[in-house]
């Protein structure tokens, strides 16, 4: 993550219109090689539009998009050869078997014939679906299909793997499994991963996050920095003696909100907060510290919440 890292995706002044409607409005960002980069945003933010344009399926209305130094609109086939894509909607061939799907993909990407079988076994091993090789894709569960798609996405050893909402619609367990594979890929195979999500917890563990809303990137940094910049940690306190607590907080000019059963205190400097809390030792009956989340970041910037787990 040093400054020296090579930029594998570079996007400058990218705009995409559907007719008169502007889905992506003049965005700029870049992604360093080997990173897990997340696009976080509510429905309709323009995440899929950006992915589809980066992976050469859509043409951009304006701007320059490059992958590994190659322009995605003028160097389509080179770009296509160097990326793997898992679209938001499944693109598996449901009437064919898992193996047939993977074989077909190998043909498309010119994987040498002698290597095809080994690679199929390798990627199926990775997503733990080796036993399903001969099954028709249509008979697999949603989570298994997703894992097959991820396996297929990397079978030609791409430099960048695009994942458009890889875990949406999966049950929590499968979500966790799929996520494990994604992290494993990035860390062990050094594949740059560009994904979109509206799950906060997923974005949290990425190296870099761009928050998108109404076609604009409204924040772009590591989750740590974003939270540091836009959120405060909070303490949720219940106290025996409410008057004393309130007057003390006021005298120290600590921001707080009184809720039905508890007080919510913004934590600025940790040491100050600890001092206040120690003065209140006898009164406090319960305390919970909550760290700021990316949802708070979004809330802070837009005044709205990204509906967690929203599906449309």
């Amino acid at each position, binding site marked *: 993550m040093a400054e020296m890292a090579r930029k594998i995706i570079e996007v400058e002044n990218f705009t995409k219109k559907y007719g008169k409607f502007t889905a992506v409005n003049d965005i700029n960002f870049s992604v360093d090689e080997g990173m897990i980069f997340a696009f976080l945003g509510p429905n309709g933010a323009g995440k899929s539009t950006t992915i589809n344009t980066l992976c050469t399926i859509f043409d951009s209305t304006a701007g320059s998009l490059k992958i590994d130094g190659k322009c995605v609109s003028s160097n389509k*086939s080179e770009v296509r050869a160097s990326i793997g894509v898992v679209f938001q909607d499944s693109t598996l061939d449901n009437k064919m078997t898992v193996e047939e799907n993977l074989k077909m993909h190998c*043909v498309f*990407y*010119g994987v040498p014939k002698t290597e095809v079988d080994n690679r199929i076994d390798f990627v199926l091993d990775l997503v733990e679906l080796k036993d399903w090789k001969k099954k028709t894709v249509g008979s697999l569960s949603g989570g298994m299909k997703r894992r097959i798609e991820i396996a297929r996405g990397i079978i030609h050893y791409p430099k960048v793997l695009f994942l458009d909402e890889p875990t949406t619609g999966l049950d929590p367990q499968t979500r966790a499994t799929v996520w494990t594979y994604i992290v494993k890929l990035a860390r062990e195979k050094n594949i740059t991963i560009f994904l979109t999500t509206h799950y906060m917890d997923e974005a949290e563990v990425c190296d870099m996050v761009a928050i998108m809303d109404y076609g604009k990137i409204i924040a772009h940094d590591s989750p740590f920095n974003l939270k540091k910049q836009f959120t405060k940690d909070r303490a949720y306190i219940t106290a025996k003696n409410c008057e004393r607590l309130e007057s003390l907080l006021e005298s120290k000019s600590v921001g707080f909100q009184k809720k039905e059963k508890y007080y919510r205190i913004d934590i600025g400097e940790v040491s100050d907060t600890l001092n206040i809390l120690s003065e209140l030792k006898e009164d406090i009956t319960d305390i919970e510290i909550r760290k700021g989340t990316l949802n708070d970041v979004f809330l802070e910037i837009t005044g709205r919440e990204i509906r967690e787990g929203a599906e449309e």
Partner: protein
Amino acid sequence: MRVIYALWLRNFKTFLRNKTALIFNLISPFFFVYIFAGIFKHEGIGNASAFMLSGVIITMVFESTMRISASTIDDMTGGFMKEVLVSPISRLNIAIAQFISSATVATIQGLIIYVLGLFTGLSLSPSALLLTIPVMIFVGLVFSGLGLFIATKAKNIQTFQAVSLAVTMPLVFLSGAYIPLSLLPNAMQWFAYFNPLSYAVILFRAVTLGKLNSSGAELVHESIAFKIGSFTVTPIIAFGVLAVFGILFLFLSTISFLKVDFSKMNRNKKDLIDF
């Protein structure tokens, strides 16, 4: 080559695995054979059943290519085509594979009817069978171009079905496949002259009925060939005309497929065809 073969194999397997459609597609042809053959017995056409059956088979070949194009649209708007398009293979190869698979499937469907026809006592010359196969492949290729062209322009399955119905019906009924052109009103006959399927019907019927060597006058008399003014369209000329149509269709559809903007493709939305 490897890519074209793989795509062809995939489309072919998909066709084979869809057994219900395979069987249902065979019902209407026979329906037409018996109805129309009954009617035309009284119209002085020598072997009415064989005459009808050859028209029905070639119509079947034509209609299959349109049906396969519908599945192309399905692939395009939804899943699989996206996987194809995001891969580094050239769109030209994809188009070629589409044409070849369409022609293959169409030919097979035509052959099934042909063979069933032989068993149900319809007398088509079995010796003509060998020559009919290349003709069916040729006709399949010509119309696969038309199918892909409409598919890339229609952009969604509803529009495609509406357009293909609007195109298929008049082409079939004004081609001489079911109703000899001489029985049609004058204006309709004019339409038939511009209908590529008319030429496919002449060619195919002459081959299946073993009339390739008959004179033009004889063919016109038997309603196999027709005249434009005083000019007789013989099977050889029909072949030439069809080849021209074919080159045009393949060319237009390839161009259209190469530059189709897939961000305008939509699985559900009903937008108008945009030429």
